[in-house]
């Protein structure tokens, strides 16, 4: 498979301009990776709406869990897929149907055909990345854990979102 490349400006723009994210595969278990990502992104000012049929109607980090994207009663800008790659096409179809602008597939999640379908429908697609890690990387916070952000800058502010 072709390596994926997304310029930093593109990731930064998505993380700056997006407010409402539906997280498909959000877990109610506190030590699952999706829970970590949801909590972090909430702290950064995103509204995260959890989607998980097994937890339908439960409350997760202050939000109601929906069974699928179509049940969400308000506009969703971005769909974050926290599921196996083979689940991506079905989620992408729903994302197109509800009018999302961005489909973001998590680290290790990649489905090139589904991505093409979304792009043909006018959506922006990011694959095999984590919005939490990308936010941490571009804001400099990831470097606080000794992780190589590959960001070189002489600028003082690395703030992504207005608080």
């Amino acid at each position, binding site marked *: 498979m072709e390596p994926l*490349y997304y*310029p*930093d*400006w*593109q990731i*930064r*723009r998505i993380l*700056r*301009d997006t407010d409402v994210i539906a997280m498909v595969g959000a877990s109610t278990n*506190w*030590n*699952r*990776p999706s*829970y*970590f990502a949801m*909590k*972090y992104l909430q*702290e950064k000012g995103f509204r995260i709406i959890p989607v998980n049929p097994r937890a339908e109607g439960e409350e997760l980090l202050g939000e109601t869990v929906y069974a699928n994207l179509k049940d969400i009663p308000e506009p969703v800008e971005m769909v974050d897929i926290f599921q196996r790659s083979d689940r991506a096409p079905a989620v992408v179809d729903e994302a197109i149907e509800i009018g999302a602008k961005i489909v973001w597939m998590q*680290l*290790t999640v990649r489905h090139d055909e589904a991505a093409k379908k979304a792009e043909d429908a006018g959506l922006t697609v990011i694959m095999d990345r984590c919005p939490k890690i990308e936010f*941490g990387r571009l804001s*400099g*916070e*990831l*470097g*606080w*854990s*000794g*992780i*190589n*952000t*590959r*960001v*070189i*800058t*002489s*600028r*003082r*502010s*690395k*703030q*992504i979102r207005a608080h």
Partner: protein
Amino acid sequence: MMSDNGTKTMVDDSKPAKPPGFETLAIHAGASPDPSTGARNVPIYQSTAYVFDDVDHAASLFNLQTFGYIYSRIGNPTVSALEEKVAALENGRAAVATSTGHAAQMLAMYILMEPGANFVSSINLYGGSITQFTHTFKKFGWHCKFVDPADPENFRAAIDENTKALFLELLANPGGIIVDIEPIADIAREAGIPLIVDNTTATPYLVQPFDWGADIVIHSMTKFLGGHGNAMGGIVVESGRFDWGQNDKFPSLTQPDPAYHGLTFHETFGDFGFSTKGRAVALRDLGPTLAPMNAFLILTGIETLSLRMARHVENAQAVAEYLDAHPAVEWISYAGLKSSPYHKLAKKYLPKGAGSLFTFGLKGGYEAGIRLVESVELISHLANLGDTRTLILHPASTTHRQLTEEQRIAAGAGPDVVRISVGLETVDDIIADLDQALSHALAKAAE
């Protein structure tokens, strides 16, 4: 091109831009201006602890759900700037700094080993490492099997079902020996275990072991990275490319951790899971933390790493050629000399120079060697390497003293061996001091 306000520029960014050069990374990686004050150099954050916004923020930090500082045993802003810088210079994913190089070895092994487990190591190591691996690690139930790295197959033959890693120094202390890493990396990969390389003597300026298949790189930053003989420090860097989940050999990374509320580090932190475990559990519970002041000194040293290393190897080559031609010198082991059996490997792995640490022996053997190290005036007789100053010592009576005679000879530290770490003084002055010390040693021998 990245733009701070997230707008697109006219630069073609359909593919990655050329990554910054080594010198740029040495100065800038991990060291952008302090966002609060605008301080351009990395400040010394001499603080033990960091305030929480509220109880929920504290809980998020303790659960590792958000990035941030809690307590300087686990993380400190000056130290993390250094960690990111060294990770960048090694082209790795992440790094954890420790109080010393020895602590770095303990931290890496703590993550990989279990009581009853073993690792296979090259015998050509710093004597202190041989002692740590042989005696001190045994008290943790960890066993080290030493092999001669000259034949890579020796590593394969020593691997058993409880082997968790291979370990080597590419440019091996006390000097002159280069280990052929590439076939050894293949053996590690086939066995599903990581290859750990101590890159202290070469530094990433001369070689980046991840390019040759290493999975974890360790440094004593006390040496060439800091470079000025003024601060102790160690670091563990992970490449991010080793799949810890490929087998069941690394439960500490792939099984829920009872020391962290059942968190599974590999699954949760992916390609920086090893470092996260090293920080959140090993640094937390073993405590060998790097001091911020030392991190600051090492950060400052690294900014000039490329200039220093280029001059270190230039001076070393000149000193080696001088000694090679000296009638009192019986043998010399420096891979930069064409006569060295390791010259070919030096050309392959260390094209910018074969380091500045090497060994030689005098025709007068043990007695002459002792007299030489006691006769220097400019060169310092002490146990360290990678200083701006030229350093000399007799390994059999110092750095490799705790070993048996047999171990010393196998490690290249036999009774007649003298080790030199060539520094950055005017090279003619280094040679002049050796010249007078050699005549002194010879004159005494003639008495």
